[in-house]
């Protein structure tokens, strides 16, 4: 078995990094995150559309490229490295992923194809943002004469508040979980939420008898819990790849600074207190990277081991990023917590992504329970 990326995957990484070097420079990120939308629409249109990022994992019939989540993981690692502010994760890894898994041909043509083409954005509301399981869905669906009516609150939904396609997980009167594409209208309120990390956006969703057409329930009336769990596991693996990229960026910045900043006539990186600290970060980042790559590899296959692998990857990547971001600030010393140095942006991203789709403590607990050693 080959345990390395192919020449094409490496070429994709290189091309993605080349684009992000200018499109997601520190200056560009600061500019874009200060706009009302929170990202540069032109840059996202180029990346998702012209450069084909959004089409990677979807089938050619759905307007995709027919590749896999492993290639998406490569792109996300670079997105994390550059902290590219964009709706890519919410649109492709959550919404597009759900539409591909559950939508019928007509539904995929209507909602997935524009996401794959980069011409529309998406958001998936499944429950609390720190949950990673379909069983945590809180919205209720009841049958009405012309389809369905949805009621409930989702306090934090990843993505843009004005995302074009909104998919909501809701439990119907029979107890079956369904995914519904909700159009804006009476009973639907979306409000942008200000969160710690400016590079990813969230909104709150309130549904009060929101009407959904009969053909907007994805995949019919069968219970979608298992499929949604897999969708969320794939998203978790992708988020871990993004965190690994961000952690590497923190480590690279800290190492570079330790080589150039002199104290007592030597680079600070020559002092044990600094070099051991950075070596410790490196071991965490490498461990997380291996776990994230394995999860992305399994996400690319119909593998029953994806779920625990994704939990492991997300746990290790969250831990590695938090450590790398925090220690990067420490190594940078006094300038490390200034606005001008980017270390704080990674630190905020670390805190936010750690909580999204399962915090490490909760995931470890779930893992222990799965192994039969939980409380």
């Amino acid at each position, binding site marked *: 078995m080959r345990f390395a990326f192919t*020449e*094409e995957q490496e*070429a*994709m990484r*290189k*091309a*993605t990094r*080349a*684009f992000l070097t*200018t499109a997601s420079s520190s200056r560009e990120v600061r500019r874009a995150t200060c706009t009302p939308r929170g990202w540069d629409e032109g840059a996202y249109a180029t990346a998702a559309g*012209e*450069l*084909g*990022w959004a*089409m*990677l994992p979807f089938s050619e019939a759905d307007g995709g*490229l027919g*590749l896999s989540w492993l*290639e998406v993981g490569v*792109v996300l690692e670079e997105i994390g490295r550059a902290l590219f502010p964009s709706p890519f994760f919410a649109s492709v890894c959550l919404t597009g992923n759900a539409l591909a898994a559950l939508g019928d041909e007509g539904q995929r043509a209507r909602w997935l194809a524009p996401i794959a083409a980069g011409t529309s954005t998406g958001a998936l509301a499944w429950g609390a943002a720190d949950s990673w399981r379909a069983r945590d869905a809180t919205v209720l669906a009841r049958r009405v004469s012309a389809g369905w009516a949805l009621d409930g609150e989702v306090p934090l939904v990843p993505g843009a508040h004005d995302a074009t396609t909104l998919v909501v997980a809701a439990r119907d009167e029979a107890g079956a979980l369904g995914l519904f594409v909700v159009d804006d209208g009476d009973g639907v309120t979306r409000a942008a939420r200000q969160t710690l990390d400016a590079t990813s956006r969230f909104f709150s969703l309130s549904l009060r008898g929101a009407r959904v057409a009969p053909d907007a329930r994805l995949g019919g009336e069968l219970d979608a819990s298992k499929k949604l769990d897999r969708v969320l596991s794939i998203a978790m693996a992708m988020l871990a790849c993004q965190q690994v990229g961000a952690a590497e960026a923190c480590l690279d910045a800290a190492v570079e600074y330790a080589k150039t900043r002199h104290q007592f006539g030597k680079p600070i990186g020559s002092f044990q207190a600094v070099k051991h600290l950075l070596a410790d970060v490196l071991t965490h980042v490498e461990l997380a990277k291996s776990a994230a790559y394995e999860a992305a590899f399994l996400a690319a296959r119909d593998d029953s081991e994806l779920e625990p692998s994704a939990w492991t990857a997300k746990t290790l990547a969250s831990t590695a990023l938090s450590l790398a971001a925090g220690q990067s600030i420490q190594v940078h010393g006094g300038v490390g917590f200034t606005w001008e140095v980017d270390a704080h942006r990674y630190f905020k991203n670390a805190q936010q992504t750690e909580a999204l789709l399962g915090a490490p403590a909760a995931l470890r607990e779930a893992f222990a329970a799965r192994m039969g050693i939980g409380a």
Partner: protein
Amino acid sequence: MKILVPLKRVADPDNANKIKIPAGGATIDTTGLEWKPNPFDEYALEAALRLTENGATPKTRGGEVIVVTFGPKECETTLRAALATGADRAIRVDAKDDELDGSIVAKALRAIVDKEKPDAVVMGKQAVDGDSNQIGQMLAQHLGWPQATFAATIEEEDGALLVGREVDGGVITLRVKLPALVTVDLRIVAPTSVYSKQTKRDFKYNDGVRFAALPAIMAAKKKPLAELKLAELVSDTALKVQYSRFEAPPSRKAGIKVKDVAELVTRLKNEAKVI
């Protein structure tokens, strides 16, 4: 229009500190070096792509761009990257780096031009490793073609190229009849630098070279990449240029602090001898 674009891989200038010179200085140790396309060659490819499309969104191709490089098998990465960017096909001339000099490459390119019969050769003005700036001029001489070097703008006309060259004090505009050879400078990738006959004059490109789309990277696998032997192209493979010795530039000494302006002036005068 059919355009031939020679490409060269060079050691990544951002990692120049990785270049090692073994004791004796007979060669450069390239182990562990990271390679990237010569930036001026990337600009030439961008110019060639602009000359063979209509400059609309989405673009329609109206010609053929062939990229060619000289070197070992690993150089195919450079060619695949060019194919992913938009080139139509590629040629690698199999050769070791130490078998090549400007004269041999120019003669081999002439043989390729004779075979491919392009309307133009568009290439970087020089490679950023050797900075020789000679292959374009030598190739034009071998071919007997008109040449326009250091191009900052190119406009396609019927049977000719209108080339703007930035020189001290202004811009010289040359009209070269096709077939012709053009070497490009860095401003060739500005938004309004290159226009094919099909591109509207109010169209503006993005500044810089284009990025490879991910679908194009996959499609590049299927584009033709031919391999030629150097000996098939050049009968005399004796090197005209031989390097007798390499040595690294002296490392910079640490700076010193001076007490006052008077000491600074004294040191500049007596030690640095610059005033």
